[in-house]
């Protein structure tokens, strides 16, 4: 009897392991406040010069994608409100990779095609708090023209947002 239970237990564990990717994506669904938005210059000596620091900088809404039966993508609405005319209001499909280190706003910068995805690196991922960052070089975020040689720059741009789940 013990042997049978052991076999069943091991097989269930193996089957659940196959579905791990789908389950974890659901943790992002909900309404989030952009609690803090920081933009900084990173210098070669490792120091950061924060040139833009905003509290309560907008909202991010993430919901399940009814058109995706696999459950591998979600829908997002990203409303960023910076100083003056510095706003970013986009919505579309949110995807991630199997290591959950990267979040992709698909085709967020244009309708379709290349150089359109907004890619965030996930620095922290908790149930009620997320920290995402994006980078750039030569004064350009996401898709700078210098895209091959990281050794040629002497400073870089960083945009870090902290999200807090709304109650």
């Amino acid at each position, binding site marked *: 009897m013990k*042997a049978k239970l052991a076999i069943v237990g091991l097989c269930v564990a193996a089957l659940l*392991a196959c579905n791990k990717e789908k389950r974890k994506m659901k943790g992002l669904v909900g309404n989030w406040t952009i609690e803090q938005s920081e933009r900084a210059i990173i210098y070669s000596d*490792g120091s950061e010069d924060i040139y833009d620091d905003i509290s309560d900088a907008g909202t991010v809404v993430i919901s399940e994608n009814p058109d995706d039966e696999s459950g591998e993508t979600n829908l997002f609405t990203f409303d960023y409100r910076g100083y003056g005319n510095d706003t970013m209001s986009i919505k579309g499909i949110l995807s991630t990779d*199997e290591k959950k280190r990267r979040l992709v706003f698909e085709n967020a910068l244009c309708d379709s095609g290349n150089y*359109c995805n907004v890619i965030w*690196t996930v620095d922290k991922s908790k149930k009620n708090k997320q920290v995402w960052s*994006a980078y750039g070089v030569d004064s350009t975020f996401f898709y700078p023209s210098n895209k*091959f040689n*990281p050794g040629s720059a002497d400073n*870089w741009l960083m945009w870090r947002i902290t999200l807090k789940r709304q109650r």
Partner: protein
Amino acid sequence: MALIFACMKIRLLLLCTTLLQTAAQAQFFELKKTYTGSHYAFSRYDPSGLNRFVVGFNETWKSDLKEGFAQYKGGELGLTFTTSGFRVIFGNREDFKWTASTDYAFGFGKDKNRAEFNNGVEQLMEIRCSKNQINTTFGVALKESKVWLEGYLSTNLAKVLIQYTTIYPNGNESYGSEYKLNGLYRGTMKTTEFGLQVSYKRKKYVFYTRAMYPIIVLGPNKEERNFVDKQNGHEDPTDFPSNYGYYLNNPSAYVSENGQLKSSDFKGLSFGFGLLYLFGKAK
């Protein structure tokens, strides 16, 4: 990929059913036990594709590099496996019996490689390899069924991820699109492997060593044996390069010129040793 996992799930369910049915019978079997354990496997692969990238990258940026990527030797991806399965020993002769087993094993191994530029930026290339195996053995049990000599057949689904990131001087790691090579590149290889296994049983513990070699490549198709990052955001193709010169000088055509890294490089001889625990009363 989803299809491969679906097939593996079906095979797991069939395996469960078979094991439960077998467990329900017990006549001329001397031993009939489930087991669990782990082993370490030294795994060889062909490093030439990766080294072509490493040499090309280091050569291209040599004036900006403080330290380039190290070349690979082909033995970096040793894997630690956990395994569970079922074994029977049967036969009527006292000095010679037959033995067979079937099990599921999952193994994982990784390797990190770094390049550092003079301006403090680093490139981190982490290769992560995981293997899902369904194994079947058949052979003889000798020395009062304490020594088992067996042939070994394995269906092996290997997944290799190349995690390529930029680490800035402040320590932040980026998967972002600001540098084209940043990303998570995925390649798979499904093989049938054949090998030999020698085991020694002492009470409820089994010490074993095994060696195996891929004899058949089951998939994917030849043109899909690449490492691709579909979320990269840059222009196609987004395959991880092997020929870095082609990749830089002709980013739209390096794949058609066979300049991409192949997942078929990541198969080869593996050998290892491990320990199993047999459930139930010792015999």
